[in-house]
């Protein structure tokens, strides 16, 4: 049993690392600024296509492409917010929601026209490298993803907690009018948060593609689980998102092992409901 249980738990933790990468950007946009960003999965998909193009057409390794794709996605997030989502929504929550939904539909279908619905994947030099950890054979790609997830979570926490911009973002999230009186421009902070959150999808894309696939619908595979993790961990909490992601990864993995891959995924929503019954603000959320 140990031969199955240990690799399953380890795999769950590493899978959680992948989920954390997607959820961290979302918790910044959704958790801190309360923008329900329906386009988050779509932006992840665009990042993955960017990585695929660089790898398949130019032979650039996804890990080497990470700085470029992260910056490019950050710039796209900034442009989207300042050029489209911000002006369309005029600061109203329901309009923000509809604007991100519109962006999602536009890009999903645009990518479908440009790339068709076909599934693409890549082989890299480290695609099949593995490391023996006890009875488990762990893919190097998952270890790298996990390591980066830890780094990204730490960097985001430091950005929000320790920097001037981070404090300004928190101020806008708590009391936009008060922040404005203090000389902070809320629209600018929204754009910065949206850009940083979108940049996270770029990093996630580089770390995902060596072990996953890409097609115009791939964002939907991650978006629901990312929202679950953000709420489960506590909205706006980076520690909560990271812990929530690991918890969901392990539950999903053990659920698959003991209940089968068909029934096993039901444990995640059950855990979600149970946690919210006893801690309505999530595991690390504040009322």
């Amino acid at each position, binding site marked *: 049993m140990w031969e199955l249980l240990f690799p399953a738990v380890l795999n769950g933790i590493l899978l959680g690392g992948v989920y954390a990468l997607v959820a961290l950007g979302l918790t910044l946009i959704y958790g801190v600024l309360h923008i329900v960003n329906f386009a988050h999965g779509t932006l992840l998909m665009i990042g993955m296509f960017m990585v695929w193009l660089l790898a398949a057409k130019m032979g650039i390794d996804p890990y080497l492409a990470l700085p470029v794709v992260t910056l490019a996605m950050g710039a796209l997030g900034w442009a989207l917010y300042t050029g489209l989502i911000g002006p369309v929504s005029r600061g109203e929550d329901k309009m923000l929601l509809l604007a991100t939904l519109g962006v999602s539909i536009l890009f999903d279908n645009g990518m479908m026209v440009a790339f*068709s619905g076909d599934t693409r994947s890549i082989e890299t030099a480290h695609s099949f490298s*593995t490391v023996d950890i006890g009875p488990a054979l762990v893919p190097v790609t998952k270890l790298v993803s996990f390591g980066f997830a830890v780094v990204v979570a730490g960097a985001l926490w430091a950005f929000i907690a320790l920097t001037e911009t981070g404090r300004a973002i928190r101020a806008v999230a708590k009391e936009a009018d008060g922040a404005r009186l203090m000389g902070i421009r809320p629209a600018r902070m929204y754009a910065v948060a949206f850009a940083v959150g979108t940049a996270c999808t770029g990093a996630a894309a580089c770390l995902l593609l060596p072990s996953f696939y890409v097609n115009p619908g791939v964002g939907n595979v991650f978006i629901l689980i990312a929202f679950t993790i953000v709420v489960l961990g506590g909205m706006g909490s980076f520690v909560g998102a990271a812990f929530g992601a690991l918890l969901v990864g392990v539950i999903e993995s053990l659920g698959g092992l003991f209940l089968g*891959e068909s029934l096993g995924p039901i444990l995640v929503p059950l855990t979600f409901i149970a946690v919210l019954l006893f801690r309505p603000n999530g595991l690390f959320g504040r009322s």
Partner: protein
Amino acid sequence: MVKLNRRQFVATGAAVLASPGILRAEQAPIKFGLVHPVSGALSFSGSQCRLGGVLAIKHINDAGGIKALGGAKIDALLGDAQSRPEVGASVVEQMAEQKVVGFTGSYSSAISLATTQAAAKYDIPFCLDGPTAQLITERGLRNTFRFFPTNATLVDDALRSLDALNKSAGSPAKTAILVHEDGEFGTNTAKLLSSKLPGINIEVRELIAHATPTRDFSNIALRIKAAAPDMVIITNYTNEYVLLNRTLVQQKVNLVAVFSVSGAGFNLKFVKDQPTIASGIIDFNNWYNPKDSRSAKFRAEIETKGEPFTWEALHGYFAVRLLADAIERAGSTDKNKVIAALETSTFSDHFMPYGPTKFVAGQNQGARMVALQAQDGDIKVIAPAEFAEAKAIFPRHPLK
């Protein structure tokens, strides 16, 4: 400026006056309705069917059109079923009003059930391309014809091929695990396979179902590794097909064979994108006859357009060719005459791995699939022997 004398003026004027008559003598084009899901979940495969259909119309028109109708050209009316049966039926209704002489389509079984029924109301002939459900040609619709194989004999044919491959290698495969998606397609096919595998002396160790989408196959790979079967047989959809095979290679699960029946993910893009993972996988599926020289030419024509070659394009192409051939045979676009021509059709101008058509209740009797294997970054036919272009690699090369 060109100056005309009186004679030249009269001659030119007469020619101009006569020209409407000449135009009238040219046959009016006839309309074919091509109804496929080119948006939504099935858009890739639907677009491939459309690509093949449009190419067939171009070939026919370039070769002089329908000769029996005085060289009438074919106009393609292209309809999008949006991956929804009711939309497909509505598109058929609209095209029927535009007086199409025949339909081809509609890739998926669910959409084709609706589109053929809608066309049947007007008695307009319908040549199917992609769908495999038996029911489509078993409802007594006299307008519906399928040149290609159904899923009725698919499992039996696939197991016959597998048995032959296994026996010729000294029967190294004695046990199998079936991994399937938990919907109707995967579950039914897996159940059917598991009931018949003992008949070819292969013991089924386990059936493993998974949801769609499944993001991670590590646990399934662990279970397979623990059970140590000789073979893994897969029936699931494209994305999970890619992920499962990648995980099996990553986890160094050594197998005699990985086998799929009508594998949704087994295509040239997968084989070229993932040569390490795909190498040696065997799939029982639709394909061309590689021994016919026209096959390579057709594939090259698709690929020079920058499109991947798929069996869907092949099916889209021959559904149109079959319909055009029936109109040639009928010498008319009269619906009843075209349907009668299809019923007695012996269409043989093709490069599929079967002979001339013989329709019984709308289903071509000789149609069959072939065993394919990913070898050297390409897809090769390995069985039946009369169509095989490469020797099967069975058992699969061990993973390093």
